[in-house]
């Protein structure tokens, strides 16, 4: 499903060169819930961006859903993300002037679905995350946990194979963090989604199938998580 072969990513900051990823090879099977962990600057967000088609490697090959991402143009990558990847961010990032349902509908504007179909799909996604009754509420009227659930509904509404989450529990209290982790696990269990999550949260280890530890741009080790079947 996701395959990285000898991938490096080098950034330039003025005259300096920063090697964010250094010859990393990694394979993630379809339907797995995977955590990328490591200290700040270890390269986990860079790795997430590469496998989500947000960035291209300096060297190596990134293959996702049988597509080689390195060879795609910006527009092709955008189209790939719209069809295959759902995103969840730490700060929810809902559009403040749209209701929960409208926020969830947003990715569907890129599809050819009718207005009614978009609405129905958004309602379904909200039902999956347990927020059907809050569909018409604005983000400002919702708690952090609820907003993150709306963000998850937005990530799955277009039925992508992969859901990537960048510190999804980073801005939540303990109770909500656990609920969000459980929800992500359910996405993998009930809908067969491949979920890749960057996290510092050690509670995540109980929910994921495997954990890839990175350090200084290198893949340090891979260990099974508490959620492994």
């Amino acid at each position: 499903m996701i395959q990285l072969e000898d991938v490096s990513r080098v950034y330039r900051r003025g005259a300096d060169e920063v090697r964010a990823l250094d010859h990393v090879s990694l394979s993630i099977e379809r339907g797995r819930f995977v955590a990328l962990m490591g200290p700040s600057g270890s390269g986990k967000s860079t790795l997430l961006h590469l496998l989500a088609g947000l960035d291209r490697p300096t060297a190596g090959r990134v293959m996702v859903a049988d597509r080689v991402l390195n060879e795609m143009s910006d527009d092709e990558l955008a189209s790939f993300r719209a069809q295959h990847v759902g995103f969840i961010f730490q700060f929810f990032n809902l559009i403040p002037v749209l209701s929960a349902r409208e926020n969830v509908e947003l990715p569907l504007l890129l599809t050819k679905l009718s207005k009614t179909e978009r609405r129905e799909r958004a309602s379904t996604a909200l039902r999956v995350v347990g927020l059907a009754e809050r569909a018409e509420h604005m983000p400002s009227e919702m708690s952090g946990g609820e907003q993150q659930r709306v963000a998850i509904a937005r990530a799955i509404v277009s039925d992508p194979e992969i859901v990537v989450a960048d510190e999804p529990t980073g801005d939540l209290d303990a109770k909500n963090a656990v609920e969000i982790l459980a929800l992500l696990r359910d996405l993998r269990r009930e809908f067969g989604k491949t979920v890749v999550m960057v996290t510092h949260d050690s509670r995540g280890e109980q929910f994921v199938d495997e954990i890839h530890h990175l350090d200084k741009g290198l893949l340090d080790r891979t260990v099974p998580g508490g959620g492994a079947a």
Partner: protein
Amino acid sequence: MSWSAFLWRNLSRNKVRSLLTGGAIALAIALVCFLATMPDGMNRILEQVATNTRVVVHNEAGLVYPLPYAYMQKVRAMPGVVAVTSWTWFGGVFKEEDGISFPNFAVEPDAVGETWPDYGIPKDQLEEFKHRRDGAIVGGGTLKKYGWKVGDQVTLKGTVFPVDLTFKIVGTIPNERAPHFWFQREYLEQAVKAAGGTFDFLGTIWVRVDDPSRLDPLARQIDETFHNSDAQTSSENEKSYFKNFFGALEGLVFLIMLVTALVAVCIVFIAANTASMTVRERMREIAILKAMGFSRRSVFGMLVAEATLLATLAGAVGAFTSLGLTRLVRYASGSWNPTMGPLASFIVSNTILVEGLFLAFFIGMVSGIVPSYGAARRNVVQTLREVF
């Protein structure tokens, strides 16, 4: 939710800023639309006051220079001439007013009716005007302004001639915009003689012809006739004559149009500044949209569409307000406020309305392009790193 609903929601995100920017655009478009009525409006006024059967003859050196009175006879004898009347500026002031507030001229009473048949002066009043030496025919505008009526006596204090004259109003030009005050030339002649002066000149000669096609040949013939005389003439049709009066105003209109164009450019900068602020504040959201799969083109299109929608809506408000105001003025001048008369000629036409809307559309599009292009091109990973 549709794209249009999404755009609309984004516009309502900062209502005060959208209203202020929209207000500035609406005001500018209203101004542009109103000023765009000037050239047509001036033309319409000219068409109202001028006919295509009269030639005006004046001194080539300028309107303030006189012509010999003897010219009248020579012009009258030319082929195609139906009637000839002269105007001589009396410059009379009513009571203690500071300046001349209406044009008063000495004329030949016999030919007034034939020279200006389109003025619709009643025949019995023209007859009385011919026979009563102190008689005066006064335009409806001046009558209304001073509350005069036919039968009233009016005294004008001479400023050009050293005489004061008292007149009896015997007739009127039935047009509430007409400012004229005409009286018998002979009356002035006798008063000047009594004061020890002479009066053997005139200001302008008005000639009515039997056929509009004769206008230009006759004007040429008159000028050729007096070509080598001491007072050479300049003859032109009535429309051209009045146009000369508006000449200075046309320069002013050009200046106003120029300033308006600059205002439109300023509005582009104001709208561009608003668009830049909007884009800067939403950098995180834009990055999220791009992460979700919105292409550069769709992000660019969305941001430009927002700026264009705001400007076009504001432009529509401005253009229709301008249309409404000019129609209101026209309605008012035709019913309860005739003093607005000349303003009634300035009407926002459908063409001007469409031009105004296009200008607003253009302002929105141009103002949105630069900030939107920058936002659309911005690297999504770089933005995510900066804002998270």
